[in-house]
């Protein structure tokens, strides 16, 4: 600890150089945090998908509908605790650019299937008593300034109402949820959809099925699918996680692209620049190190002193980069319509910290070895 002042003085030896190196490290970790957040956003909540929920869709494709009559059969299948359905509505608000997830669901069963959704008791009650009611996420309510009691017009894209082209819903309830759960959904009642659309009566988009024995998910899914085999609407059931993962895979290998960019960032910026700065700084201080050694500083201590310099730069720059980006993101700095879940997870912050320290040590180790190996006689003679 008593040598900390020595390390501090050597960092201040060339203030400008230290400042620029710090800035490079800072920017590397701003990028790291930003890219990891994008990665989380593109994974669409796969990490938090319920392990006890199955999703059942039409075997040929998700856009084909399933009869609502399946519900009873699903509910009486062994291992099924609770089942309900959802139907994609699409729809836009005011103009075509304002598109968000509008879904028709059963107001009683759906919130029970998703305990992640937190709704005040009285609001939920109001929704149950209002056919035209809607339950909307906190983020979407904030984006458009909607409050309880507002009447919202939604333009139909898929489902035309019997009259005109616009559906009207009352905001009865607003839900909250944890950070990594999508709060931009707009739910309204399936019974209202079914009585006001121009066709496809008694058809739903997909079923969500809560099971009581998650390890047996594969068997339960198989027995569900076999019940509807060879019917007009054959089904494909998978865990919610697998269903979401399949969807994420459709977008492409975002994880790989992000990792490749990060590797480029961390190597070309952080590692090279820090390593170069440390090497340069050690070269300049050859005489000083020789003097330290003459005074009796052991080799190990010289090594530690140089490593400590590299580590301090890495730690300060990295902490500032991660911290400021985290603050910016949690203030809703990047809030956008396309990627609703925009959070920097604790796991990614930890990963960043580990990377930061590792790269700091790696960048400092060669110059530190050089300083340690200096032979006093050679070093002093060099000038």
């Amino acid at each position, binding site marked *: 600890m008593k040598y900390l002042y020595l390390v501090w003085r050597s960092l201040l030896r060339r203030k400008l150089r230290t400042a620029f190196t710090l800035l490079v490290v800072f920017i590397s970790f701003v990028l790291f945090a930003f890219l990891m957040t994008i990665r989380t956003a593109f994974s669409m909540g796969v990490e938090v998908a319920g392990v006890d929920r199955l999703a059942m869709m*039409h075997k040929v494709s998700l856009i084909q509908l399933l009869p609502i009559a399946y519900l009873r059969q699903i509910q009486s299948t062994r291992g099924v605790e609770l089942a309900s359905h959802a139907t994609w509505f699409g729809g836009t608000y005011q103009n075509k650019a304002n598109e968000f997830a509008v879904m028709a669901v059963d107001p009683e069963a759906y919130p029970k299937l998703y305990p992640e959704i937190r709704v005040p008791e009285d609001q939920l009650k109001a929704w149950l008593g209002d056919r035209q009611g809607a339950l909307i996420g906190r983020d979407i309510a904030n984006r458009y300034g909607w409050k309880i009691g507002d009447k919202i017009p939604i333009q139909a894209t898929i489902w035309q109402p019997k009259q005109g082209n616009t559906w009207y819903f009352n905001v009865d309830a607003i839900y909250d949820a944890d950070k990594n759960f999508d709060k931009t959904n707009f739910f309204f009642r399936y019974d209202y959809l079914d009585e006001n659309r121009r066709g496809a009566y008694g058809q739903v988009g997909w079923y969500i099925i809560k099971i009581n024995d998650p390890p047996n998910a594969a068997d339960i899914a198989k027995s569900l699918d076999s019940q509807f085999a060879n019917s007009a609407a054959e089904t*494909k059931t998978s865990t919610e996680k697998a269903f979401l993962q399949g969807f994420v895979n459709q977008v492409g290998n975002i994880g790989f692209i992000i990792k490749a*960019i990060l590797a480029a960032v961390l190597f070309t910026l952080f590692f090279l620049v820090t390593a170069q700065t440390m090497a340069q700084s050690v070269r300049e201080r050859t005489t000083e190190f020789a003097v330290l050694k003459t005074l009796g500083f052991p080799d190990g201590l010289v090594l530690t002193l140089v490593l400590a310099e590299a580590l301090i730069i890495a730690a300060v720059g990295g902490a500032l980069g991660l911290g400021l980006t985290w603050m910016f993101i949690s203030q809703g700095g990047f809030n956008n319509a396309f990627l609703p879940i925009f959070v920097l997870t604790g796991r990614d912050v930890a990963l960043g910290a580990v990377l930061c320290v590792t790269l700091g040590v790696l960048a400092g180790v060669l110059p530190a070895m050089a300083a340690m190996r200096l032979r006093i006689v050679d070093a002093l003679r060099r000038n």
Partner: protein
Amino acid sequence: MSGWIRQTLAVILLGVRTIPRRLGSSAVAVIGVAGVVIVFVAVLSIAEGFRAAVADAGSPDNALVMRSGADSEMTSGLGGPEADLIKQAPGLLREDNRPVASAELYVIVDLPKRTTGTTANVPLRGVESSALRVRENVKIAEGRMFQFGTNEAIVGQGANRQFTGIDLGSEFKSGQLTLKIVGIFTSGGSVAETEVWCDAHLVQGIYRRGNSYQSVLAKLDSAASFDTFRNWLTTNPQLDVQVRRESDYYAAQSTVMTSIIQGIGVTVALLMGVGAVFGAILTMYTAVSTRTREIATLRALGFNTLSVIVSVLTESLALGAIGGLIGGLAAYVAFNGYQTSTMNFQTFSQVAFAFRVTPQLLVTGLVYALAMGLVGGLLPAIRAARLPIPSALREL
């Protein structure tokens, strides 16, 4: 003036000759800039490839008719009688007294993606016999066109490459749907190559659509007849439709995805660029400080301050240029033509496309690299010019 130029050239040459002595530190600046350019060019080449595949798919001579309010073919719906009526509109090309128009259905079918093994939303298009006549860029590359009235189908080259189960000669089965693949078609790399085509009546049956379609694609007798065609349809009280040029429809479809990728790419490249500039500044400071005595000597001999500044800037510009060239070249070799597919959220279906490293992207990357070099050299150049000669000569 010529004396000044000679002076400057002499100083630059001196600088260049000493670069090998500072190879390590110059390499850091070059690699830093190259890294930024690689990321910049690579990410934007994704956006460019996607845009080219989707936006260039339509022809301005074709008009696409959908139900009003629908945001894509997927969400549109037209009854059979409406489709027949649309084909009678004026301005539409007629050959042998028959309209050159195809009433179509656009649905999706789940096929396993080759790279992940999980299923993906592949567009399945039910077409009428004039589909190939309307789309002049679609050519059968292998096999033959399917026969109407059967369950034969043809697949685009991109779909064939990206998804399994639809090889030429194979039979694809899913639920009640069975397709016999008899041909593979191309459409100049555009979005149609991700589609599977079969008889519209087959889709009507399997997807329970009755006698209904989703869109009518019509060839106009000339691009100028578009207004006549549109006005007749939109003022017809029997119809509730929207009419767009096929080219406009596809151009609009690529916007969301393209702007997201471009936004991410430019943000990352700008932030990285700032980092690389700091890297370049450090390198150039090192360059200046190792040549302190040299530069001071030159100035003591009466060399102009400006030529010293220019020489430092030239060196850092050269490092930027080398980095830009290496980065651009590496991005081109590694990514140009790389085949992949993604989900287009505007149509809820897959688009196969190839990364495109265009000359324009490479030029932009190089200009960016030069800018990083220039900014990186400024401060060190000023420092070199301001060195107090006596103390600089005494240093080390």
